[in-house]
């Protein structure tokens, strides 16, 4: 499972960078979206994938029996997903406003504030 995930994550990062290097601001945001998803999957995978072993402690015991999945990366990923969702929602509104003002879906037309 891990090698497959690694390939998928690598592909996601590569696609994200490719999208971000385009001139269109819509593609820029799609790139950002893929990038944050790739990072989330990466956290999920590097912490080790354990199949069918929820981190539950049986009644009357102090610690779980046998090997269980690590719940912490899942909590971390959950937090990161929520943050990415909020930030990307902002980014979508931002590019819409930028499109309304600049009237172009082109980063090359947005160089006024550069020196």
């Amino acid at each position, binding site marked *: 499972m891990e090698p497959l995930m690694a390939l998928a994550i690598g592909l996601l990062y590569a696609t994200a960078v490719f999208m971000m290097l385009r001139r269109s601001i819509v593609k820029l945001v799609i790139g950002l979206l893929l990038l944050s998803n790739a*990072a989330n999957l990466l*956290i999920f995978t590097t912490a080790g994938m354990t199949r069918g072993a929820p981190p539950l402690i049986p009644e009357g015991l102090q610690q779980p029996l046998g090997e269980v999945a690590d719940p912490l990366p899942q909590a971390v990923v959950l*937090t990161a997903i929520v943050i990415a969702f909020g930030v990307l929602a902002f980014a979508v509104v931002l590019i819409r406003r930028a499109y309304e003002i600049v009237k172009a879906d082109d980063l090359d037309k*947005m160089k006024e504030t550069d*020196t």
Partner: protein
Amino acid sequence: MRPEVALPVLLPLLSGAISLLFWRSRPMQRFIAVAGNVALLVVSLWLFVATLSDGYITMQMGNWPAPFGITLVADMLSAVMVLLTGIIGLAMGIYSLATTGRGHEKFGYYPLMHLLLAGVAGAFLTGDIFNLYVWFEVMLVASFALLTLGGERAQMEGAIKYVTLNLLASVIFLTAVGLLYGTLGTLNMADIALRLDVAEHTGMVEVLAVMFMVAFGIKAAAFPLFFWLPASYHTPSVAVSALFAGLLTKVGVYSLFRVFTLMFDQTMGYLQDIMLWGAVFTMVTGVLGAAAQHEFRRILSFHIVSQIGYMILGLALYTPLAIAGGAFAIMHNIVVKTNLFLISGITHRLQGTYQLKKMGGLYRERPWLAVAFFISAFSLAGIPPLSGFFAKFVLVRAGLEAGAYVATGFALAVGLMTLYSMVKIWNEVFWKALPEDNLVPSSQTPVGDDGRLVKPSLWMMYLPVGVLALMSLLIGLFAEPVMNVMTAIGDQLTTPSGYIEAVLGASVSPEGALASPGEIQAEETENGSEDLP
């Protein structure tokens, strides 16, 4: 239970929440903006005094023992940074009352300001690397909204670059955190530091260190990753510019200091040269960029970049004295840079423009403003006896002691170039006569950010400027007590064992309250380190 560590984070969150409740009431929001920030300043002073006597203050959130729960830690560096956040927050709170247009206030300017301060304070105080990411995002989301408040074309263009590059940095940071957890199985910074000391070196540690360096380098606007800053910092309303200039990049620098003195201290030998030259190039490109500009806030934006170089130089030299100098530079720069932006806001209010060519004659009209600018500008350039001189003096001395003659030479030359830019502003804005073709003579009623005429309530703008200029002067005149604090920071950061003991030691002992804390801490740390794999 040390509430003073949590309060600088909780209070601005609370002020923000209360401020949101009074969404429709402008006077109430304005009142909370000042009252909440006064409270923040008081608790940050409390934290500073407590840290000054105790050295380290820790608090385990939810009473989970250290490596498992989220820890809040204040050492001297955090405490000083939080204190500065409180000072700048209050200055901005008062200044915003006079400069923020009604349009901005209606769309949540004050709640966002509180949220931003909460994010900044949280980032300074957390002892957990993932929590640091979360506070970064809190700060970023608030700063995104503040940056685009108003929705002018320049703001949108600047914001796209700001948002993209900062999100990219966040993802790199998050990726590094994920890989770090996969490698070590912990997120507590003190615990990470302990485990990295015994971890086998597979090259992964170096990769992680570089990823953190790049992520925080983007946030700190270090060369060659700084391009988002001069493209965006001159676009929002001036109070927002000043707040960003004072605090946001310094959070990146703080994180670099924290991560590379605590966690990756053993990779410093490997990264020191990269960081040193990065610092030199940051100083030089920033100051050269400023020399080419003729707009007040753009010049100042490039000088932010240039000054970041001095701070990173302190970290790159990596001796206790150099780190003390770097911390001094951070502290001095927060005060001075914010003040320069605030002054640019007053001159804009008086003359209706940021273009140096169109301004003039302010020395005759507003001599006290000229004095405040003079103090801040010369402090930035490092002229004695102002605060910048001592920051630079300590850094130069540390550089000479470490034998980094080229970097030290550049640091001195960049000081001269800074003086050139500051003298340029002085000549154009204060010294020369007001050009006759200026369409906005200084006697006209000033205009707010949304274009409406506002009452000239200049004293609210003068008050923070005066206080900050006085602070810069006092830091310079009473440099010794300040330097003692900075030396303590340098010592603490170069001996991370104190930090690790403070975080991991105290938490293992529920019965620790009975014996004297010093002995227990030493004992517990021994126990703690035995438990580690």
